[in-house]
């Protein structure tokens, strides 16, 4: 089928401002948006720049605005979209070229929540035991692939770039509710301020945007509750 794309292009080496360009490519209905972008890049315009790798929604490289919604280009099929398919970089990060944005501030926030297991006791010789229920408690937030779709769909983040953002909170949740972790207090402290969890206004955009189906707002809510109660 003929598929038309409208892509917001920006090359700092050439352009003063971003501008739209239109393309038509021949695709199978079962092709992904990513297949379309690769086709454009390979056949029509080799200057188009985007990040991508796994092509099936696991590596988190290709989150972008597709028809106005944050999604992974490799996880939407062209047949399910209205044409022309509009493609823009994620909002709220600096655009470096075309669909490539500066992710460094995003990862800096990720690092700020101490995203690693903190243990004070030496581990046993074999595995630490954890019941299936304890493991289930934080299963949802282990799925995060750090694509940035949630954070860049959040109005609280757009209006305040210092907000730590849903993705970093999801990562904190993954440890706070892990029965093996002993760093809960430090982590809760990092999130317990104006640019921490309290900036969340439960708009639910993040839940909509998450390509991994994580219930981000619920995770944030659970941390708020833990802070309110003073314990996990």
């Amino acid at each position, binding site marked *: 089928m003929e598929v038309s794309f409208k892509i917001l292009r920006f090359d700092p080496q050439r352009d003063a401002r971003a501008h739209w360009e239109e393309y038509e490519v021949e695709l199978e209905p079962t092709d992904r948006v990513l297949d379309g972008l690769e086709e454009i890049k390979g056949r029509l315009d080799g200057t188009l720049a985007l990040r991508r*790798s796994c092509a099936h929604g696991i590596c*988190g490289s290709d989150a972008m605005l597709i028809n106005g919604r944050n999604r992974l280009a490799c996880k939407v099929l062209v047949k399910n979209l209205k044409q022309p398919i509009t493609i823009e970089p994620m909002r709220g990060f600096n655009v470096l070229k075309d669909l490539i944005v500066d992710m460094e501030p995003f990862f800096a926030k990720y690092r700020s929540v101490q995203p690693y297991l903190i243990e004070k006791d030496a581990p046993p010789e074999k595995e630490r035991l954890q019941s299936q229920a304890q493991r289930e408690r934080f299963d949802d937030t282990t799925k995060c692939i750090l694509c940035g779709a949630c954070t860049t769909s959040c109005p609280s983040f757009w209006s305040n770039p210092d907000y730590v953002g849903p993705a970093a909170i999801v990562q904190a949740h993954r440890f706070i509710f892990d029965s093996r972790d002993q760093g809960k207090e430090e982590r809760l402290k990092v999130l317990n301020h104006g640019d921490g969890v309290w900036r969340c206004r439960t708009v639910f955009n993040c839940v909509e945007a998450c390509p991994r189906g994580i219930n981000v707002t619920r995770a944030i809510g659970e941390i708020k509750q833990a802070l309110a109660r003073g314990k996990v």
Partner: protein
Amino acid sequence: MAVHEFDGIIIGAGGAGLMAALQASKSAKIAVLSKLYPTRSHTGTAQGGIGAALGNLEEDHWEWHMFDTIKGGDYLVDQDAAEIMCREAVDTVYELEHMGLPFSRTPDGKIAQRPFGGHTREFGKAPVQRSCYAADRTGHMILQTLYQQCIKQGVTFFNEFHVVDLLVQDGVVCGAVAIEIATGELYTFHAKAVLFATGGSGRMYKITSNALTLTGDGMAVVYRRGIPLEDMEFFQFHPTGIYKMGILITEAARGEGGILRNNSGERFMERYAATLKDLAPRDMVSRAIYKEIREGRGIGGKDYVHLDLTHLDSKVIHAKLPDITDFVETYMGIDPVKSPIPIQPTAHYAMGGIPTNSDAEVVIDEKNTAMPGLYAAGECACVSVHGANRLGTNSLVDIIVFGRRGGKALGRFVQQAPLQPLPPDSEKATRDRIERLFESRGSESVARIREKLQAEMMDKASVFRTEGELKKMLDILRGLRQRYSNVCLQDRGRKFNMELLEAFELDHLLELSQVTVTSAMARQESRGAHAREDFPKRDDAKWLKHTLAYRDEELVSLKYKPVSITKFQPQERKY
């Protein structure tokens, strides 16, 4: 010329690279260079599990694991290395748990385990539960956990640095050259030691489970510097890729009870492997599927068969295989609880690679002479623990065990080795390559050549091979090489010039395809994943040996080295 100086550099930030970095950076000044942001590495897509004889649910021993690995590899496995891997697998899995890896759990809170293809109890008697897993996203959890530990430990990263050359001066390693993707600038990394952990090369083939970025860069870069590649004719096709797309459906789907069926609904694996059936090793199952299709028993006479999960409890599917359920729904519009999944074999794993010993030191000849300061680990390396066919769950073990050993060995090496001077103008070769590409005004595009390469390799050098087809493939490769010299880039900027990087990647794929096909043509026998229709039998008398392929101008020259056999004498391989 911008130069960074380190004791050692690690190229690649997948499981192997990160594990090596955690070890090496404890005692030395180390940098990790990766063309992808670390968490984008392909280790993150591994689904099914990591094999280790923990014996959490039933009796198991690392010796059984070792036997299965050797038999699975059709006796081309170096048994000393396999012994180390299977023994150390147990401790490394505990170490991952201690780092925080969220494994799924047994009812009594231990690490959960499940059966996987070719893994058996008592030397082949029946399937055993050996694959340690975190739902069907084990690789994601491994990658995340290792990266988390790197943050904790303050490891230095150069993210989105694309390595294009290895620096060697008078036979001694002294660093690497990389393009900073954001700026297009070249950087020289001057170091006493370099460890390659750049992953696989599945993008040689049209249908593959491998990421778009898995273009065998590390293998090609060292090969161009005169280092051989080992056993490149052995490329694994995983039986269950999503039809036409190649996206992987983990073997765990069969581990949990899934069944392969042909046109008439028959469970055809019963005819090919009476004991293990659907859980036979991958090379056998992929061949069986090709045969069914050739003999007209594909679904509707087409080139696919069905993976049937519909008889499984939907709770099991949702709890243990959530991601693959999501893939099948997203990409095929099918609910695997209700309908069978159309599948076909998909190019999955390079058994071959940069030859190493069990400390991940690169060895460059028939006598296994180590090249000082050069290391490789993970899928780009060939230890060889996978021989002619890798068992499922054994790559994750490989990357963790040998990533760790390599990191330690590199850490020790740089303590006593001096920093060698750089060659004069270390970036010249790279600059020339880039200039050639920028200056070319030919009419060829990277995408078109790549497309042709992938289609032809799939057709002529995949599951079944013959001398005639391989010969044709070599001719085609010569033609593609010719066309490559006429590639013209549209993007002439420096910043994020993805077209330029793809041109480098294609160059690497062409190089590796030539090695694969030449090695495959020479090996006149069938062993593991290398099935020659004109030589259908394994021939131990002539071919129980590893191939070493060297670059010889535009050609490939081949040498051979013996296989290490310690505990298990070669036998006929039946399942």
